[in-house]
């Protein structure tokens, strides 16, 4: 049997992080920008004195940088929140409640993040009707179904820019055209895409856009919602009336400053970094699938996030692969970290038509700034033995493969 030897076990000194979608390090330049706002410039942006003014100025500069990153028409279209989950909640519940007199129908896709899925499900218990669009085997939203589902009652369509679990990038421009033809509003959750793909809310026709700070190497606990002029949402958090009355609570100043710095860096570096990641990604996918029988790619080979490597191996199970990789110092994921609390396979993998056992056999590597070609080659090198060992253990391994 192909046991992992002791010296290659948990004592392995090599540590390789390939779970960037679950959490990213904060860029050192961002940390540096944030520090003064914790130690010396701690004023409240709502205060009149100079401490308050410098805090206010820092907040507005950050707002401008985020507006520039997604090409928003003006900085006041950006509302700071506590992160992508809050932005998605605000976009969906806030828009639905504010516009319920115009209609009560909402459309979303069946591969959205839980922070879109669950607000939609919640609204369906509060008098709204929600349609979940099917996707094809790659994860593309079916545009014909979207067209058919849109009625005069439809007020909002929410489709993610790209899916962090299978990497698929949606045809947002096309979707926007269809949605706007029917006078509905388009919300796009761009959490996984911002910083990896240049996004232009004006050119692509996006009305509401969710942006996360940590996903662009900014601090955790801060995010934003872009709201196009004219689109109206109701606040989901009530209080002192900060953020144009849409999101009360004293601003998370260091977080917002860090988010702004991260946006500035992302805008400058997105092109070169995504080209580098795309090269690494394609090398990785090839190396993980070609030498191993019954290995497949989840998602689309080309319309894919530059950092996303999602594969699956028949007859074996994701968590056993994760543990085996962890023993060799490699951190990966079997799907969305947000769904790891349940034993059910991910709704995304089920929606692209994978059987339960196929979905359970999925493995997700998400790359980032610190990954190198050497690291990718190391994982390509250890994967065949991990798969072989687990297949030798599995009662599902097919007879052909054994021979």
């Amino acid at each position, binding site marked *: 049997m192909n046991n992992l030897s002791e010296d290659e076990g948990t004592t392995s000194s090599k540590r390789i992080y390939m779970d960037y979608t679950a959490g990213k390090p904060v860029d050192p330049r961002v940390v540096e920008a944030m520090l003064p706002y914790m130690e010396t410039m701690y004023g409240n942006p709502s205060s009149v004195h100079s401490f308050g003014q410098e805090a206010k100025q820092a907040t507005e500069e950050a707002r401008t940088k985020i507006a520039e990153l997604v090409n928003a028409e003006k900085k006041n279209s950006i509302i700071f929140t506590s992160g992508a989950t809050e932005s998605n909640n605000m976009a969906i519940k806030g828009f639905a409640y504010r516009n319920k007199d115009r209609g009560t129908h909402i459309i979303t896709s069946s591969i959205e993040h839980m922070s879109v899925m669950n607000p939609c499900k919640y609204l369906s218990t509060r008098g709204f009707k929600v349609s979940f669009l099917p996707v094809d085997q790659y994860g593309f939203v079916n545009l014909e179904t979207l067209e058919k589902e849109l009625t005069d009652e439809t007020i909002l369509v929410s489709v993610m820019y790209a899916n962090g679990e299978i990497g698929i990038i949606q045809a947002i421009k096309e979707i926007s055209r269809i949605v706007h033809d029917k006078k509905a509003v388009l919300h796009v959750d761009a959490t996984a895409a911002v910083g990896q793909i240049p996004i232009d809310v004006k050119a692509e026709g996006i009305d509401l856009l969710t942006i996360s700070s940590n996903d662009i190497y900014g601090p955790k606990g801060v995010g934003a919602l872009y709201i196009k002029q004219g689109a109206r949402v109701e606040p989901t958090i009530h209080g002192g009336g900060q953020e144009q009355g849409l999101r009360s609570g004293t601003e998370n100043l260091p977080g917002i400053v860090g988010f702004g710095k991260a946006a500035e860096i992302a805008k400058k570096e997105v092109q070169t970094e995504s080209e580098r990641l795309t090269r690494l990604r394609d090398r990785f996918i090839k190396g993980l699938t070609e030498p191993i029988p019954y290995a497949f790619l989840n998602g689309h080979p080309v319309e894919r996030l530059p950092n996303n490597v999602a594969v699956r191996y028949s007859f074996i199970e994701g968590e056993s692969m994760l*543990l085996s990789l962890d023993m060799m110092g490699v951190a990966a994921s079997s799907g969305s970290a947000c769904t790891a*609390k349940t034993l059910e396979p991910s709704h995304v993998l089920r929606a692209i038509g994978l059987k*339960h056992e196929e979905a359970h056999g999925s493995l997700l590597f998400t790359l980032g700034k610190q990954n190198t070609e050497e690291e990718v080659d190391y994982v390509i090198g250890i994967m065949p033995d991990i798969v072989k060992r687990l297949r030798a*253990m599995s009662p599902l391994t097919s007879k052909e493969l054994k021979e």
Partner: protein
Amino acid sequence: MEHFKNPRNMGEIPDADGVGTVGNPVCGDVMAIYIKVKDNRIADIKFKTFGCGAAVATSSMVTELAKGKTLEQAMKITRADVADELGGLPPIKMHCSNLAADGLHAAIEDYYKKQKVKGMKK
């Protein structure tokens, strides 16, 4: 962790006296336990598992617990015994230890059934 890294008794027994297969791919775990019986004792036992780390570890542990035991003793190995021997399992993984004990019991029942059939043939 040790039982995941170096599982004991992994494999198949081609001429097993009893085989127990439990679980299904929907929940993500399938286990097969093979036993060889001699003088009413489990002389050899092996397993195959498709599942998470806990599923592999519990299958390995249940084979260690059952080896050399009489069939009656082995039938008494409970789900809790398996989890306790491993030093406890997180609540969400308890079903894995259930599966391992169920697999063992299913293998023994299969053995009894086969013996009955043999007896009838005689």
